[in-house]
C-alpha cells in the first residue's frame, strides 16, 4: 500500500497556510475509547497556547453508534461551534461517507486502513494510515489494544499539522493522573504513528499549528464540574440526584469532590451527604425535606426530570422552602434527543407547578458562571426562601471549555432570615412562620432542632395562615398569595444583572467615551442568554467587520431586572437569539413588556447542535433584508 492514496498528483502547496484557525472532526464508534485520544489533541493544542474548544456530538448509546468530536483552534479566541470542518479523521466505516462529505473544499481527509472504501473527491487531500498496526506492535495487553489503537490518529495528525510532542505528553500525563504505565503505552503508540507519518506521508502545508500565547491565565474544564465545585464552595450539604444525560456528571462531580473538600479536618466526619435517589420525584423530595430542615440542598437533572419534579416544585414554592435545582437542558419534548443540546426548558421551568407558581431562574452563559451561580444560587434561594432553578445545557455542561480560573466567592454565605433559640427569646412579638414582618414579603423561618418552645411549625402545601394553621378562608388565601407576589416582585435585586457589551464600549469607539461625548446605542440590539454567548460574540465581530455595529445584552436571570427593559427600549430592533423552536425567551419578554413587542424580533433555532456564528449572521441579515423590503 502506498500513502497517500491518489494524492500524489494533487498540488500540495496551492493555498496559503492556515495557522491556528481551523476545525478538526474525528468520526469514531461510540464506546471505542476515542475520547482519550480527542482530549489529548485538545489539551496538547491548549498547552501550545492555542485557544481551543472541544465539542462531543455523541449518540444515546453505550457502544457502536457513530460519534463525532470536533476541535476548534482559533487564534482569535472564538470558541463556538463552526459548520465547516477543515480536517476530518474517519475511524468508523459506518459514518465514512458522511465524514468524507463534510470535509470543506481544500481540506484534509484522514482515514484508517481498516476502512476499505473508495474516495470520490478530488478537491481535498486524502490520506490513509494504518489503524491497528501501532497498537499491535506496542506492549498493550490484548484487552486494551482497541483503545490504544485510537492513539494512531493522534500521532499521524500531530506529525501532519505540527502538534508539539511534549504538549502531547503533558496531556497524557494529566489524563492518566501521572500514572507512568498508561502514559508511556499511549505515548509510544503516538510516537510510532508520528514516525510512520514522517516516513510515509507527503508533508502538507495547508493547515498547521504553531505555539502562541493565547491560553495563559486559562484553565480547561466543563460546566458540570464547575457547577459542582461552585455548589461545594457555596456550602451545599445535601445532594439528591437521579442519573440522566446530560446532568449525570454534575452529580458525579459532587460525589467525587465532596469527600476531598468537605470532611471535618479534626474528626474526619462528613459535612455533606450525597444520595442517589430512586427517581427524580424522590430526588427533589429529599431536596425539599433537606431545604426545610435548614440544609443547602441541591438536585441536578434534565428536562424529563424537571417534568417529574413539577409537583414538588409547586410545594417548595408555596411552602417557601429554599432548594437549588440544576437543569442541564437537552432536547425535548419527551425523551427527545437525550444527547443533544437545547434551551427549551425556559418557559416550562419558569412556571413549573400548577396554580399561580413562578420560580427564580438563573442562566449561566459560561463555565465560570456555572461555578459562580453554583454558590450564589444557595444565597438567593435562602434569602428569598424559594426554589432556584439554574438552567445550563448539554453544550455548557458536558463539553470541554477554556475558562478563567475559578474565583473564590467574594462574599460570605447569606443564610437569609433564620431564627434560632436566642432570636426567639429576644423577640417582642409572637413569631409566625409566614408573618410579613419586614414588609418585603420574606418571612422568618425556624429550623428543626430549634429547642425554643415556640419554634416548631407545621409545613404544608395546603392553605395556611401566618402561623401555619390550616385554613380555607378566602381572605387568608388572598393575603398569602399577595405576599408571595410581593416577594417575587422584589426578587430581581437579588439576581445577577444582565451582561452588556455595547459597541461604544469596544476599543474602536473607546475614544468617544473618553472625550465625554454621549455615545448613541446602535440601531440593533442582540439579546441572548446561556451558552449561545460564544457564537454571539463571534457573530457580532463578523457583523462589525461588515460595518454593522451591534450592542448586546445577555440576560442572566428571571424574573427580569429593570436593566432589561432599558436595553430593549433604547434599541430600535432587538434580536432575541435562542436555541429552541418556539422562541421562548422572546415570548416571555413580549409578555412582560407588551408595549415593546414591536421592537423585539425572534431568531430561534434548535437542531440539537450548538448555535454557530454563521447561522446568526445569515439569519440576522435575512431578517433585516426582509424588513427593509417591507
Amino acid at each position, binding site marked *: 500500500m502506498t500513502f497517500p492514496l491518489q494524492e500524489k498528483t494533487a498540488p500540495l502547496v496551492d493555498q496559503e497556510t492556515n495557522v491556528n484557525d481551523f476545525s478538526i472532526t474525528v468520526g469514531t464508534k461510540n464506546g471505542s475509547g476515542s475520547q482519550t485520544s480527542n482530549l489529548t489533541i485538545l489539551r496538547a493544542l491548549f498547552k501550545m497556547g492555542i485557544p481551543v474548544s472541544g465539542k462531543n456530538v455523541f449518540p444515546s448509546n453505550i457502544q457502536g453508534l457513530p460519534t463525532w468530536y470536533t476541535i476548534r483552534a482559533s487564534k482569535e479566541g472564538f470558541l463556538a461551534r463552526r459548520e465547516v470542518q477543515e480536517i476530518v479523521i474517519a475511524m468508523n466505516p459506518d459514518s465514512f461517507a458522511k465524514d468524507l462529505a463534510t470535509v470543506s473544499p481544500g481540506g484534509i481527509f484522514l482515514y484508517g486502513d481498516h476502512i476499505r472504501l473508495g474516495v470520490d473527491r478530488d478537491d481535498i487531500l486524502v490520506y490513509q494510515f494504518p489503524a491497528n498496526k501501532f497498537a499491535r506492535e506496542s506492549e498493550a495487553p490484548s484487552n486494551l489494544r482497541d483503545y490504544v489503537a485510537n492513539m494512531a490518529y493522534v500521532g499521524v495528525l500531530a506529525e501532519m499539522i505540527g502538534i508539539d510532542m511534549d504538549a502531547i505528553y503533558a496531556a497524557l500525563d494529566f489524563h492518566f493522573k501521572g500514572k507512568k504505565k498508561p502514559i508511556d503505552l499511549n505515548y509510544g503508540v503516538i510516537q510510532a504513528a508520528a514516525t510512520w507519518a514522517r516516513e510515509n506521508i507527503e508533508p502538507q502545508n495547508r493547515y498547521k499549528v504553531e505555539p502562541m500565547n493565547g491560553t495563559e491565565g486559562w484553565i480547561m474544564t466543563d460546566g458540570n464540574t464547575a457547577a459542582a465545585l461552585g455548589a461545594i464552595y457555596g456550602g451545599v450539604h445535601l445532594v439528591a440526584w437521579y442519573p440522566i444525560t446530560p446532568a449525570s456528571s454534575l452529580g458525579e462531580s459532587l460525589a467525587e469532590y465532596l469527600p476531598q473538600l468537605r470532611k471535618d479536618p479534626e474528626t474526619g466526619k462528613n459535612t455533606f451527604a450525597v444520595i442517589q435517589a430512586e427517581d427524580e420525584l424522590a430526588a427533589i423530595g429529599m431536596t425539599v*425535606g433537606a431545604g426545610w*430542615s435548614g440544609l443547602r440542598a441541591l438536585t441536578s437533572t434534565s428536562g424529563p426530570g424537571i417534568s417529574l419534579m413539577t409537583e414538588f416544585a409547586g410545594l417548595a414554592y408555596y411552602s417557601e422552602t429554599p432548594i437549588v435545582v440544576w437543569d442541564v437542558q437537552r432536547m425535548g419534548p419527551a425523551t427527545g434527543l437525550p444527547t443533544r443540546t437545547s434551551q427549551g426548558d425556559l418557559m416550562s421551568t419558569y412556571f413549573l407547578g400548577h396554580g399561580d407558581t413562578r420560580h427564580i431562574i438563573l442562566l449561566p452563559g459560561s463555565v465560570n458562571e456555572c461555578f459562580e451561580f453554583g454558590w450564589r444560587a444557595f444565597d438567593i434561594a435562602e434569602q428569598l426562601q424559594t426554589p432556584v432553578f439554574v438552567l445550563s445545557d448539554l453544550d455548557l455542561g458536558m463539553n470541554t471549555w477554556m475558562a478563567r*480560573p475559578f474565583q473564590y466567592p467574594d462574599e460570605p454565605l447569606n443564610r437569609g432570615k433564620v431564627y434560632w433559640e436566642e432570636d426567639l427569646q429576644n423577640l417582642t412579638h409572637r413569631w409566625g412562620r409566614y408573618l410579613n414582618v419586614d414588609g418585603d414579603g420574606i418571612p422568618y423561618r425556624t*429550623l428543626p432542632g430549634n429547642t425554643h418552645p415556640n419554634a416548631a411549625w407545621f409545613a404544608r402545601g395546603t392553605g395556611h395562615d401566618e402561623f401555619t394553621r390550616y385554613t380555607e378562608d378566602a381572605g387568608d388565601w388572598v393575603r398569602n398569595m399577595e405576599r408571595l407576589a410581593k416577594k417575587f416582585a422584589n426578587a430581581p435585586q437579588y439576581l445577577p444583572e444582565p451582561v452588556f457589551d455595547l459597541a461604544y464600549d469596544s476599543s474602536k469607539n473607546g475614544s468617544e467615551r473618553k472625550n465625554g461625548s454621549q455615545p448613541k446605542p446602535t440601531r440593533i440590539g442582540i439579546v441572548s442568554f446561556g451558552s449561545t454567548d460564544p457564537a454571539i460574540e463571534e457573530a457580532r465581530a463578523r457583523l462589525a467587520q461588515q460595518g454593522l455595529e451591534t450592542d448586546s445584552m445577555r440576560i442572566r436571570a428571571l424574573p427580569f431586572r429593570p436593566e432589561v427593559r432599558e436595553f430593549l427600549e433604547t434599541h430600535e430592533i432587538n434580536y432575541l437569539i435562542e436555541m429552541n423552536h418556539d422562541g421562548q425567551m422572546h415570548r416571555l419578554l413580549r409578555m412582560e413588556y407588551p408595549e415593546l413587542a414591536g421592537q423585539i424580533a425572534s431568531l430561534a433555532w434548535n437542531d440539537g447542535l450548538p448555535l454557530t456564528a454563521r447561522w446568526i449572521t445569515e439569519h440576522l441579515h435575512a431578517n433585516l433584508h426582509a424588513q427593509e423590503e417591507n
Partner: protein
Amino acid sequence: MSTNRPSNVNGVGLSKNDYRGANSTLCAGCGHNSIANQIIAACYEMDLAPETVLKFSGIGCSSKSPTYFLSRSFGFNSLHGRMPSVATGAAFGNHHLKPLAVSGDGDTANIGMGQFKHVMRRNLNMMYLVENNGVYGLTKGQFSATAEEGLTLKSQGRNPLKPVDICQEAMVSGATFVARSFAGDAKQVKDLIKAAISHKGIAVLDIVSPCVTFNDNADAHHSYAWSKEHETPIHDLTYVPLRDEILLDNGFEEGTYQEVALHDGSRVLLKKLERDYDPTHRWAAFQALEEAANDNILLTGLIYVDSSRPSFTELYNLTETPLNRLPEAQIRPSRESLARINDLMF
C-alpha cells in the same frame, strides 16, 4: 427517681397537654384519632422532648393527623405518596432527631409504593405508621390497594383484586422492624409505638384503623367488628423502658417470655400465646404473614425485628454537630483549596 416529680408531669417536666395537637377534624369514631392519642401517650410516657421529634405525612385522612398530636414538634405534611423522600432529606438536617411518620393505605400502597419500598431499603431511622382502612376517605370511599378481595362498597361495587399486604411488602424490601396492630387494641398500639420509636431504623406499624364512614360493615376486614373478632395477637407484648427496673407482673416469670433488646436500652418482652414465635426469624415472619392472609386472620404483634443493620444516616459518617448548625467555616472550603483545584484544571 421520680419521687419529687409532680404527678402531672413527666421526666422532662412536661404535662400531657404539651404533647397534644390541634383538635381533630376527622370523623367521630375514626380509628386515626385513637392512634393519635396513643402517639401522644407514648411520647409523654417515654419522656421524649417534643423538639427531638419530627412529624411527617403524605396526603389523605391519615396524613392530616400529625396536626392532632405534638404541636411542639416540627412537622411537614408533604405530597401524596412522597412523604418518605421528604423525611429522608429532612433527617439529614439534624440526624439526632427522631422522625415519626403517619401515612395511609392509599398514600403508602397505591400512589406511594415506590417511595415506601425505597425508604425500607435505606433503613431510615423513622417510625412509619400506616393507618390502614382499605378505602379512600377524603375522596369518598374508593377502594385502596389494601381492600380485601370481595369487599363490596355502596358506590364501588365488588373489589375483584387481591389486597396488598403492607407488612409483607415491608419485609420483602428489607424493613428492620415490622409490626401489625389494630386501633381498637390501645395497649398493644401504644407499646408498639414505643418500641418503634426505640428502634434505630425503619419501623413499620401497619395498624388497622377503621373508617367509620365508608368501610365499617361488620363483614369488612378493616371494620371494628371484624377486626375485634379476628384479631389474633401472636404474643402478649410489653414495652419496658430503659429506666425501669424489671417490674414484671406475675405473667412474666423466668422462661415464659422472649426478650428483644432495642437500641436505646429498652426492651420488648414477648409472652408466648398459642404458638412459639420468634420475631427475629425472617423466614418465620414471612410464613406467619402468609398463613394469616390465607386464613383471614388479623395477626397482630411484633412480626419481625432486626437490630443489627445500620440506619441510613449512620452510613454517612456525619459530624456530631447537626449539619443545619454547622458554621460557615465548616461548610465553605478554604481559598487555598480552590487554588489547588484550579492548578489541576487542564
